[in-house]
């Protein structure tokens, strides 16, 4: 346990000073600030922020994560020659990746809202959901990046795979949903679409937010289906559970790869 903390402390010091993480935090800060000034109310600003969250967080996390793991090869080799268990090192490194990125996102969004005194009773729940969705996406794509970096040795190829996975889960996925609804327009699609939502963490995060926004129909077909079938807090709980599974399953595979590989 204490080894994990030592590794996390070291990586935190390292990653927080990373200029990409600082830029990332600043980006969320400026975007939220801008949306508050232009749009006025907090719910509207958060709604506009939604698409930024579900596209940008996966992209930045999966790219940064893949580079991070390849970049910590030296550190890993140095520590594994010491009395450090591979599991401890893995958990320490994983936390060192996900914590700073999550922190950058949470601070970037929350600070402008606090400064504008924008958190009222109506918007507090929404803000919390937004933060939960963003942090979950960071954990999910951090885990996927970890798995990619653990399986694909070559730095550039790993980066290519990471970008491919991101494109598949964001752009290509929406196309697939659209194609499904058009191709099977005269059949009941609610069941299959519900299943498809759980197959994609980006969709799950989007659904998690739209469920509380009363605009689910606007946010695409899966959101509408989800609201109708799972509605309310059941749907929220199901989406959060789905996101957790999306972080844990790739994470466990990545841990196994890390424990058995050669350095």
């Amino acid at each position, binding site marked *: 346990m204490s080894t994990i903390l030592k*590794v996390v402390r*070291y990586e935190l010091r390292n990653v927080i000073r990373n200029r990409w993480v600082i830029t990332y935090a600043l980006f969320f800060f400026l975007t939220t600030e801008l949306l508050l000034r232009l749009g006025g109310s907090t719910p509207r600003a958060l709604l506009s922020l939604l698409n930024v969250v579900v596209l940008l967080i996966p992209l930045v996390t999966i790219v940064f994560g893949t580079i991070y793991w390849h970049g910590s090869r030296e550190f890993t*080799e*140095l520590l*594994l020659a010491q009395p450090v268990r*591979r599991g401890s090192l893995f958990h320490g490194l994983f936390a060192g990746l996900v914590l700073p990125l999550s922190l950058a996102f949470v601070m970037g969004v929350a600070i402008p809202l606090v400064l504008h005194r924008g958190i009222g009773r109506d918007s507090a729940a929404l803000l919390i959901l937004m933060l939960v969705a963003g942090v979950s996406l960071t954990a999910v794509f951090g885990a996927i990046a970890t798995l990619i970096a653990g399986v694909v040795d070559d730095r550039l190829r790993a980066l290519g795979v990471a970008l491919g996975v991101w494109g598949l889960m964001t752009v290509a996925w929406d196309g697939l949903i659209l194609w499904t609804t058009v191709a099977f327009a005269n059949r009941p699609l609610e069941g299959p679409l519900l299943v498809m939502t759980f197959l994609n963490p980006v969709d799950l995060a989007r659904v998690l937010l739209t469920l509380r926004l009363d605009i689910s129909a606007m946010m695409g077909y899966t959101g509408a289906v989800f609201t109708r079938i799972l509605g309310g807090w059941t749907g929220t709980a199901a989406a959060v559970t789905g996101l957790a599974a999306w972080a844990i399953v790739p994470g466990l595979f990545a841990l196994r790869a890390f424990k058995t590989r050669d*350095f």
Partner: protein
Amino acid sequence: MISARGVRKRFGRIEVLNGLDLDIERGSITAIVGPNASGKTTFNRIVLGLVRADAGDIVFDGKRLNGDARYRERIGYMPQIARYPENLSGRDVMSLVRDVRGDRALLDEELVDLFTLGPVLDKPLRVLSGGMRQRINAALAFLFRSDLLILDEPTAGLDPISAGTLKDKMRREREAGRTIIVTSHVLSELDEVADRIAFLLDGVVRFSGSRDELLRATGEETLERSVAALMRGGSGRADAP
């Protein structure tokens, strides 16, 4: 101290270790020699747990290695090419390693002094020359007074004076009862310090024993010629008792 039996390792299609048997005696300096790609570094990294063997057993001080990390408290490792996190200085690396080892004992900073590393320890490692990094690398391995020291091509990249300093240090550590494994592809380098010699070729130990035994087994007069004879014929199989 270490007893390896039937260790096999393949990387892709290349068989690096091919059923390696080797005993490392406590309190001795064992030189593992052999041409490039004969499996010396892989053996070291398997002992350290950095590489997982496909088959075979390694017993460290009576205990079979099984993934538990604690035995590494007793090992100091000097890798052939030390790759450190980009922005760390030598001092950072030393305190980081000390931190994760939880080592409270008095450090052995003799090599830091002998190599006059004081002025460069605060510079980022990436701006230092290869030789300077190699000295820091060596100093780090000896820092924790470990029972077993694994030195992988320690003198490569060191100037003759530093190499001499390192060899003297190795002798002092042996007098203090420590065990040392040292690899090299040039035997003459280790001639003066090695008590025992293990010759690796194509992933197996072709000879293991004291230097006198090596000379007798090959009927040659110098170590260099003996090893050459082993490389040529591969016939000088005379495993020491």
